[in-house]
């Protein structure tokens, strides 16, 4: 028993040290958000702010239309997630479990997209959006992310990890391909779906360059790009930037908090395997 306890303590210690390293930059962000510009620029750096006033948060919210940023970001994320999760699940299943000519070649084409740096798509995609007259709109923000090769690949892996007997049983029961997919296989990959959703949301949220290029007015900006407006060409108001980025994180954090409980603990694996 002692052996087990000691192991547990080691494990906890390791987790806590790692957690500290993960959180360190955030602690710094939070501390800086409460300082004044002079305090933030001080060398040697001052650790604690002299006062915990919310002035930076207020200032940032006045200068930037955070409400619009949130709405734009939310819509962009919503549509990208809906699109990519659904289409990735469909395609992932097909590549994992259906047989058809050209399967491997087509999968390779889809993988290709992941293998090149995203920057090469900027100009061509801009041309498309421009020709469609979608510049400066939510549609422009959503377009590049409506399908996801990353998601397709991930879902394929997930589907391939499921046992075959379920499908065979479904076929014997006379289920159509669609029914097999929708009613039986899909629900089993909830963790995969949620992962794809979370990551699509993340990529969308972090995307800096694309929103800047396709959208012109500040009220069509997203959170990440809106934040960049706090950085002047030569000077940065550090405390405001930190305050802004903290505000910007909130929705993602909340979403994650609820979903992680969801997919990690809520998935039933009993009885369907082995």
């Amino acid at each position, binding site marked *: 028993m002692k052996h087990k306890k000691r192991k547990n303590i080691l494990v*906890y210690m390791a*987790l806590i040290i*790692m957690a500290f390293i*993960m*959180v360190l*930059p*955030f602690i*710094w*962000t939070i501390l800086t958000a409460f300082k004044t510009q002079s305090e933030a620029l001080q060398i040697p*750096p001052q650790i604690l702010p002299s006062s915990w006033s919310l002035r930076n948060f207020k200032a940032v919210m006045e200068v930037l239309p955070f409400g619009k940023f949130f709405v734009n970001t939310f819509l962009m994320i919503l549509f990208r997630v809906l699109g990519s999760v659904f289409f990735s699940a*469909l*395609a992932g*299943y*097909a590549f994992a479990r*259906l*047989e*058809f000519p050209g*399967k491997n070649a087509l999968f390779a*084409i*889809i*993988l*290709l997209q*992941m293998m*090149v*740096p995203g*920057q*090469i*798509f900027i100009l*061509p*995609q801009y041309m*498309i959006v421009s020709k469609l007259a979608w510049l400066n709109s939510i549609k422009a923000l959503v377009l*590049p992310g409506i*399908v996801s*090769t990353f998601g397709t690949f991930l879902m394929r*892996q*997930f589907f*391939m*990890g*499921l046992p075959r007997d379920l499908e065979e049983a479904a076929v014997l029961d006379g289920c159509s*391909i669609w029914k097999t997919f929708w009613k039986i296989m899909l629900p089993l990959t909830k*963790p995969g779906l949620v992962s794809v959703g979370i*990551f699509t949301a*993340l990529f969308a*949220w972090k995307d800096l360059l694309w929103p800047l290029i396709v959208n012109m007015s500040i009220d069509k900006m997203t959170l*990440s790009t809106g934040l960049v407006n706090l*950085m002047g060409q030569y000077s940065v108001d*550090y405390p405001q*930037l*930190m305050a802004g*980025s903290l505000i910007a*994180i909130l929705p*993602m*954090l909340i979403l*994650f908090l609820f979903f*992680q409980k969801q997919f990690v603990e809520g*998935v039933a*694996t*009993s009885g369907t*395997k*082995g």
Partner: protein
Amino acid sequence: MIRKKKVKNPRLTLTKRNIKRWGYAYLFIAPTLIGVLVLNLWGIVQSIYYSFHEVKGFNDPEFIGLENYARLFSDGEVFRALKNILVYAVITVPIGVTLSLLLAALLNAKIKGKGFFRCIYFLPVVSAPAAVALVWKWLYNKDFGLINQILETFHISGPDWLGSGSMAMVSVAIVGIWSMLGYNMILLLAGLQEVPKELYEAAEIDGGGAVQKFLKITVPLISPTLFFVIVTTIISALQVFDTIFMMFKTSSPAFSAVESIVYLFYRYTFTNYNKGYGSAIVVLLFVIIMAITGVQLKLQKKWVHYND
């Protein structure tokens, strides 16, 4: 030894039933495929096309054949950038993937405060890119940064994270691992959900230790997800750019030790308006990544367990 006769896959023969099946399949992949063809393939094809031309500024492309590639293979900058991303990948991929795997396993087991830890480890993933670079620059400051200050208390003299060529890539790698840890951990956690608990219990009864359980049960069963994590981590490591762009100036003494291929591509394409050469650089990276991914795909048969 029964020799396996090559049987034609019944699903691929031309029957009415099969065609109907194929129809479904094509329908399923249609949205994604069309999306990729329209949004992405054009960009890739265009890059390849440009790489055989001289495309400067807004001028029309001029065909120059393999000139860009000839230049590429004798360009010291390119070799340096290749070396840099190799260093970065060698540091971040093994450490990053192993750590994420351990974390996922640990946070899947009976540990108090799982939810809390998962949140903490996920935080870096949601952080604003602009803020992250700035904060890390401060942490890395040689004289005043928190990291060196902490090392001081252990009587270790902290290195020049940002100014010295030997440490610079390590600094970038640390930020890289930091930002991807929670990300991969979530993926692996999701994969772990597919491992039935009964298997673990059976192993315990058989007297298996934690390590045994891990290697013989966990790893094989999450190998599809693990495969995905490894492939994507390698690809994104080879494409590293944002962190370097935000933390180092081109005139920094450490710059030549951190410039990545994508940075080089960005410089030529967007800063120097030399799309032809920039495209050649990106094609080179593309070929490398394709090769590495191809090798991995071939190797997956050896260690990845799919339920076929």
